[in-house]
C-alpha cells in the first residue's frame, strides 16, 4: 500500500467572479521512502495541493476527493487526530523561511515547538534534541539562542529543515524550499535535504518550478498545469524526453551543460497560464500549445499510460503510443 494516495482531489476557492478551480481531479500516489517532484509554473495549484495534504487550506476552500495517508483519510478525520498527524506524520518546509519563522522567538524555541506540541515533555527537555537537529542540518548548536533576523537565508532554511525533522515524520513536503536562495546555497540545501531524507527513509514531496532541480533531487516527477497533472514519470525521462508539450517547454527552458544546441537556444513558452476561473475549452494548455490539433479545443485529454511507469495527458501521446513507446 502506498504511503500517500490522492484520488480525484479537487480544490475550489470562492471568489467574487465565481468559484476558482485551483486543483482539478488530481490522482497521485507516493510510496514509503519515495522522492516525488511536483513541477509547474506559478498559480498552477502546486502549493494548494501541498497545503491540502494537511488540511491547511484557508477557510472557504472546498475540497473534494480523498487523501489517504497510510490508509487514513485526512479529509474526514477528526480534529484531534488531524492535529496529531500534522507534523508528527507529515511535516512541511515552507516557501519563505524568512516569514515562516516567528521574529520574536529564538530559533531554539521554535525548533523545539513541534516536540513540545506533540510530546508531553517538560519545557527544558528538548534542548538536547534541538542541538542534535541543528547539528544535523549543519548549524552550530549555539544557533539555538539566535533570533531569525540574525541568520542568513540559507541558515534560516536549514532551521526550517531541522524543524521539519523534529518529530521524525514519514513524509516531508518541501514547498519551493530554495526559491529565495542563490544557486550555490540552493545546491547545498537540496543536497542536505536529499541526504537527510535518504538516511531516514522519509518520503519527500518536493515542489518547485525548476525542473532541473527536481530532476536531480527526485526519483519521480509530476508536472502540473492549470490544476491538473499533465505528465508523470521517472524524473530523468520526463526531463530528457518529455511527452507533453508543456513538459517539453519547461524542460527546454533550462540550458543543459554540455549540450551546445540547448545552450545556444534556450526556449521560452509564449503566453500566460490560464485564468483558473475562466479555463479554456478542451485541453487547458491548447491556447499555448505549439502542436495543438483541432480536437484539442473540444476534448480535455485524461492521463494516458505512455510507457513503463509513465503517464501523460495529451492527444499526441494517445495517437503515438496506445500501449508503450517512447520511454
Amino acid at each position: 500500500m502506498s504511503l500517500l494516495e490522492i484520488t480525484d482531489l479537487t480544490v475550489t476557492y470562492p471568489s467574487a467572479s465565481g468559484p476558482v478551480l485551483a486543483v482539478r481531479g488530481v490522482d497521485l500516489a507516493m510510496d514509503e521512502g519515495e522522492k516525488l517532484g511536483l513541477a509547474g509554473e506559478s498559480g498552477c495549484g502546486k502549493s494548494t495541493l501541498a497545503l491540502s495534504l494537511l488540511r491547511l487550506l484557508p477557510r472557504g476552500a472546498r475540497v473534494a476527493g480523498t487523501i489517504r495517508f497510510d490508509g487514513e483519510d485526512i479529509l474526514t478525520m477528526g480534529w484531534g487526530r488531524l492535529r496529531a498527524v500534522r507534523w508528527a506524520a507529515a511535516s512541511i518546509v515552507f516557501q519563505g523561511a524568512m516569514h515562516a519563522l516567528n521574529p520574536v522567538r529564538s530559533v531554539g524555541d521554535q525548533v523545539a515547538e513541534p516536540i513540545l506540541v506533540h510530546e508531553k515533555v517538560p519545557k527544558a527537555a528538548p534542548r538536547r534534541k534541538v542541538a542534535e537537529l541543528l547539528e544535523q542540518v549543519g548549524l552550530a548548536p549555539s544557533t539555538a539562542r539566535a533570533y531569525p533576523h540574525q541568520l542568513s537565508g540559507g541558515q534560516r532554511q536549514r532551521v526550517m529543515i531541522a524543524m521539519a525533522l523534529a518529530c521524525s515524520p514519514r513524509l516531508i513536503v518541501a514547498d519551493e524550499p530554495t526559491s529565495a536562495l542563490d544557486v550555490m546555497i540552493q545546491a547545498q540545501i537540496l543536497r542536505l535535504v536529499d541526504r537527510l531524507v535518504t538516511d531516514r527513509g522519509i518520503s519527500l514531496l518536493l515542489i518547485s518550478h525548476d525542473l532541473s532541480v527536481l530532476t536531480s533531487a527526485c526519483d519521480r516527477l509530476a508536472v502540473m498545469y492549470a490544476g491538473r497533472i499533465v505528465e508523470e514519470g521517472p524524473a530523468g525521462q520526463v526531463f530528457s524526453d518529455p511527452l507533453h508539450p508543456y513538459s517539453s517547454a519547461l524542460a527546454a527552458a533550462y540550458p543543459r551543460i554540455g549540450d551546445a544546441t540547448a545552450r545556444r537556444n534556450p526556449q521560452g513558452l509564449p503566453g500566460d497560464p490560464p485564468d483558473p476561473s475562466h479555463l479554456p475549452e478542451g485541453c487547458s494548455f491548447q491556447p499555448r500549445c505549439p502542436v495543438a490539433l483541432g480536437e484539442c479545443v473540444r476534448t480535455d485529454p485524461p492521463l494516458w499510460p505512455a510507457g513503463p511507469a509513465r503517464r501523460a495527458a495529451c492527444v499526441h501521446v494517445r495517437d503515438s503510443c496506445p500501449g508503450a513507446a517512447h520511454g
Partner: protein
Amino acid sequence: MSAAQAPAAIPSPRRITWTRRTRSLARFGREYARHRAGMWGLAVLLVSIALALAAPLFISARDLSAVTAPGSPRQAPSLHFPLGTDAYGRSMVAVTIWGARISLLVGLAATVMSMVIGSLVGLLAGHFRAWVATVLMRVTDWFLVLPTLVLAAALASVLHRGVGTVIIAIGVTAWPGTARLVRAQTLTVEARPYIERARALGAGDWHIIRRHVLPNVMPVILAQTTLTVSAAVLAEATLAFLGLSDPTRVSWGTTLQLAQQVGAVSAGDWWILLPPGLAIVLIALAFTLCGRSLEAIFNPRLAAGP
C-alpha cells in the same frame, strides 16, 4: 555565550532554566542602562515610589489632619514650609508626598485591570474572528462610545466610595482602546506565514495565541500600558477633583479640588496648585519614558544583536 557548556556535567533542567533566567535578566539590565531617557524615567519612578512607601515614616497622621495641621491656612513658602501650606494649614511638601501613594496605587492597579481586559478581548477577537469577534467588538464599541469620564463618575457614585471603587471605575472604562489596538495587531500577526506554520505543526488555538501572537503583540501592549498609566493617573486626579473619590484621603486630585474650593486659583496661591499638578505631569512623563525604552528592548528587531 560559550557553546561548550552543554555537554559537560548535566545540570538539572530547573537549574538550567534558572541560570538562563538570571542571565537574560542581567542582559536586560545592561540593555536598559543604555537608554538614557528610560533611566531618567526609572529614576523618577523609583524616587517617587520610595517616597510614597516611606511616607508614613516621616509624615504623621497629625501632619495630615485638617484639625491638627501644623501651620496656618494658605501660608506662602517659607523656611519652615518650603512649599507653603494648603487650605487647612498642612505642609504642601507632606501633602504632595502623601498624595503620591493614592495616585500611584490607583494608576497602577487600574492600568493592570484595563490592560488585562483589553488584551484578552483584543487577542480573542483577533484570533477567533467569526461570531466571537463580532460579539466582542460590539461590546468594545459600546464601551468606546460611552463617555469614559461620565461612566467612571457614574460608577464611582453608585458603588461604595473608596479607592477600590475608583480603581474599578477607571479599569473598566479604559480598556476599549487597548482592545482595538491589540485586535488590529493580532490580525496582522495572524496573517503571517509562521502562524500557518504553527498550525501545520499541529498547534492549537491556545498555543498559537500564547506562543506566537502574544510575544508579537507584547511591544504594543507595553507601549499602550505606559500611556494607560499616565491616563489612569490623570483620571484618578480628575475623579478626585470632581469629588468622586474618598475626600478624606489625600491625593493629588483631592488637593487640587480643595485648592479650587477655597479659591486658591483666583487668589493666585500658586504653591497649592503647582506641586500636585507638576507631580502628575512628572509621573506621567516618567512612565512614558520607561515604556519607550522597554519597547525598544522587547522588540528584537529594534534591539541590537547579542
